[in-house]
């Protein structure tokens, strides 16, 4: 499918359902979504609304039950796990609510990890630079168990940006943090995002964090609805219709 060069992410008629013992659970109703290069998009919704499920599909962490997902012209819905992994390595950064740092690596080593996977030669220098940017230069040799939650998330942010991804997915990045720390993390995230010009897709239930994004979409029981927040920003209308 030929994409508008402005699109970095395009979704068509995406659904996800899971088979339980006696019934089928529809996690996502058919939805469409376009995200342009450089956009910051917040996916909001209450717990269990399907926002993390949607994020997983957009990032290529999972396969849809039906529909199409294109990330930088890569048809993720047709790729196997290996191919999707490659897409992630080349184009995607991640930040998770649980930080997901490797406990046996130091802060610096955790940050360097994506760059090493991509065989970047100056991974160590880049890692140090990014740790400095997130204010953790002096904690470079410390292990995750020696860092607070906020510090761990800062390391995770640094890790997410080291390979200069085209698109960054953040799943409740401040979910495990207190409001003050969360605020700092959010500031850091947006600051780095702006510096690198990365497209940001953010899942959150925090309205304040969501409002910092250019766009918001809302998930409610698997149904996606666009929330009009900034009239001056061009919006690709997301029409949500039940198919079938």
């Amino acid at each position, binding site marked *: 499918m030929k994409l508008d060069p402005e699109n970095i992410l395009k979704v068509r008629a995406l659904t996800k359902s899971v088979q339980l013992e006696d019934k089928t659970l529809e996690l996502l109703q058919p939805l469409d979504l376009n995200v342009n290069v450089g956009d910051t998009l917040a996916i909001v919704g209450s717990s269990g609304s399907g926002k993390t499920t949607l994020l*997983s599909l957009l990032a*290529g*962490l*999972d*396969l849809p039950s039906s529909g199409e997902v294109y990330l930088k012209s890569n048809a993720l819905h047709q790729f196997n*796990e*290996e191919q*999707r*992994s*490659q*897409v*992630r*390595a*080349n184009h*995607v950064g*991640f930040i*998770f609510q*649980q930080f*997901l*740092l*490797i*406990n*046996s*690596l130091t802060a*610096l*080593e955790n940050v*360097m*990890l*994506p760059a*090493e*996977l*991509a*065989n970047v030669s100056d*991974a*160590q220098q880049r890692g140090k630079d990014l740790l400095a940017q997130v204010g953790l230069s002096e904690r470079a040799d410390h292990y995750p*168990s020696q860092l607070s939650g906020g510090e761990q998330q800062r390391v995770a942010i640094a*890790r997410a940006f080291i390979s200069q991804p085209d698109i960054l997915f953040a799943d409740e990045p401040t979910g495990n943090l207190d409001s003050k720390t969360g605020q700092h993390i959010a500031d850091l995230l947006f600051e780095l995002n702006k510096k690198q010009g990365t497209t940001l897709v953010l899942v959150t239930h925090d309205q304040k964090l969501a409002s910092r994004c250019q766009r918001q979409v809302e998930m409610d029981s698997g149904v996606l609805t666009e929330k009009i927040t900034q009239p001056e920003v061009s919006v690709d209308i997301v029409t949500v219709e039940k198919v079938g």
Partner: protein
Amino acid sequence: MSANLSELGASNKSNLWIKQSLRLLHHEFRRGELTIICLAIVLAVATVFSLSGFSGQIKQALLTNSSTYIAADRVLRTSRVASDDVIDKSQFYDLKMAEKVETESMVFAGDNMLLSELSVISNSYPLRGELKVKQTIEQEESEVVHAPEPGSVWVELSVLSRLNIDIGDELEIGVASFEIKGIITDIPDRSYRAFIAGPTIIVNIADLAKTELVQPGSRLTYKYLFAGESDAIKSFEQWIKPQLNDTQRFYDAKQAQSRLSNTLTTAEKFLSLASMLGIVLAAVAVAVASRRYGQRHQPMVAVFKALGASLSHIRKLYYLHWSLLSLISISIGLIVGYCLLLLGINAIDSYLSLENTGLGYKPFSIAVITGLLCAIAFAIQPIKSLIKTSPLSVIRGFSNEKPPRFGLHQLPPLLALFALLMMFSQDLKMSLSLLIGGMVVSIILLAFGQGLMSAGRSVGSQAGKSWHLALANLKRRASENSVQLVSFTIAIKLLLLIVVMKNSIISEWQQQFPENTPNHYVMNIAENQLDSIGDFVNTNNIQSQGFYQVFRGRLSAVNGELLISRESNENSKSEDDELTKSENSEKENSSNEQNNAKTSDEENKPRQGMGRELGLTWRDELPYQNKLLEGQWWQKDEQQGQVSIESSIAERMSIKLGDELTFDLGGKTFTVPVTSIREVNWKSRQLNFIMVFNKPVLKDFPATYISAWMVPEQTKTALGLFFKEFPTVTMMDFGAILKQLYQVIEQVSIAIELILILVVLAGSLVLVAQVQASMEERERELAILRTLGAKGSLLRNSVLFEFVALGGIAGLMASVAMEIAVYFLQTQVFDMSASLHFSYWLLGIGVGAGFVGLVGLFSCWRLLQLSSVTLIRRTM
């Protein structure tokens, strides 16, 4: 109302822990989360059940089969007729009984005469094994028989040749005359004493009186043979043994024949060792699995406590959970063990002719106790730690809570392991050796392994290349890996140990009895017969060890001190030939030592002699397979008389280098100094001598010659002509006993192979369990790396390399540890000579790297089949 509610709440709560425990057990079983721990306990119980039952059956079968070598389960040998009490008691215990009287006598056929060995037997002989006879020389098949009809005899072939008679002819024994009615082809309890009179003639005991051979002063040996149920035999043995005097012996097959005894004892020890190693491996598997069990349940306990569950509630919940889990596993283990046992017995039944006597309660009870011991002792620490999990862990996490490596908490499992080993083997030395050796090895391994892997930790995960990532992971996880390394190493070491010991034992047996092992001793050769007999050897392609002079003499004094000879009937000694030293004579002589010890406090008691005549010989060179321990061997042309003495005799008689020994040969005495002490390999079938002189000592004494031959089967018919031509020469045929020994070796080898399979299974499970445990720790990292875009090939290869490296290091350390253990076992337990086994190092490293690597790879491959989001969810 509220009181009622609180009462209702209280009563609900009192059953809640039961419900929760059962629910937890049910869910976990369904989800397969208890597979490894269950398998470990099942394996421990199944291994013990099958091994104890199997080795018990094999030992019994070997002993039963070897009973054919004494034609009974037990033999009472005495120089007098046994009292009626003995007969009555044997009937009381419902034992079968046979009688045998042995003596030497001249027999006559016309003008010809021959000194023969008479075996006078009752109709029930033999009770075990088969006596075989053929009616004519040409007959191919032999018949299984008991005693000849009164008035007739059976003879060995050489009797016919030497007396120039045939079947049907008359033979005079004593004052009676008998008809020769058959040729003996197989005697189960053949006597192998050297310098026996001559060939064997079998007579019915009913005819003994009419020969009038029983006179005052006659040298007769009475043998009473007994056979029956194992328990009855043991009870009878317990009754009779305290009543025996010095001239009587009550023995089984092992005590009767030292070479067979050695073989059987070695086999039994090996079976015990293999089984014990199997138990150790199974116990290690339980220890590994129970540790994982504890770790896996920590989050649940933390949440329970955070929600307000009391310590008592959690304790009861998990004790019940663990108890039910153990009970189910033990039950399954018993069933699996029984099936394995039946399989094993079925597999070897055709080789060993196992008795259908049932297993008895012992394997079952040992297996149950093993299961309970493993379930309790190895789980105490993990469950205690589990119950102590802090509720704060729900916030802070669990990864840092580890018990100290060394401490009192390791006492219960060590004690349990020791109890298991002792219960199984009842051998304190072997049990302690395994336990202490294992502990020492583990400590060294921990330190060495950690040092090896953490050397030179470099910055970065080196995630770019698989091999770099693997090495970096090894070093980063040096502490955790060192524990896993010890498990791998112990498992591989024990497997190597079993394989090496098995091959060493079998190889040593085969070396003792190679294909060209002499199967005939030829004695009483006169000097003027040497050339002719040499021609006979050459003509008939007989392999000969050469001809050696032998003199019969007695050691009469040491350093001028006359020796007291214990009055003994030579017939009451072991039936081993004198040319090879008998461990039985050591045992008999140990009773002499006890007598010496008793009398040592008394003054001026004379030194004890050897109690019998010796075969003496001279040599220019150190005899084959003799090792010089002290002193020097003489030069060929030295004229000064010297003697070299065998080391164990020297030790027993406190004879040192330089001592002057006086010998009495045919009434003439001479004294020579001891100039060397030798170690003799009595296990070989070479011609071995306790005393060896240099040539000048014996040159003036009359001698006969002796030789050892390997007579091929097809040449045996030519021996008939040999006897005709050389009627005065004595020949002993060892073919039968060699055949018996080969059979035992073959049977035991098969049994050992089967036990090896079980032990290998146990070892494999330990490796798998440990790899699984370590894969769980790696799962989170794999999930993160996968999410960040690591290629599947990178992850698989890095896991493969890491496990290959771990397995290879473990294999190397296992090989070193194995050599140390094998050295100890060979020299201290199995009485073998020590040797190195470098080829097995390659096997250890290869198996370690290959097996561990492949299992790790397979586990990783399974994980990578899952989607990234599933992987991430599993780690949360």
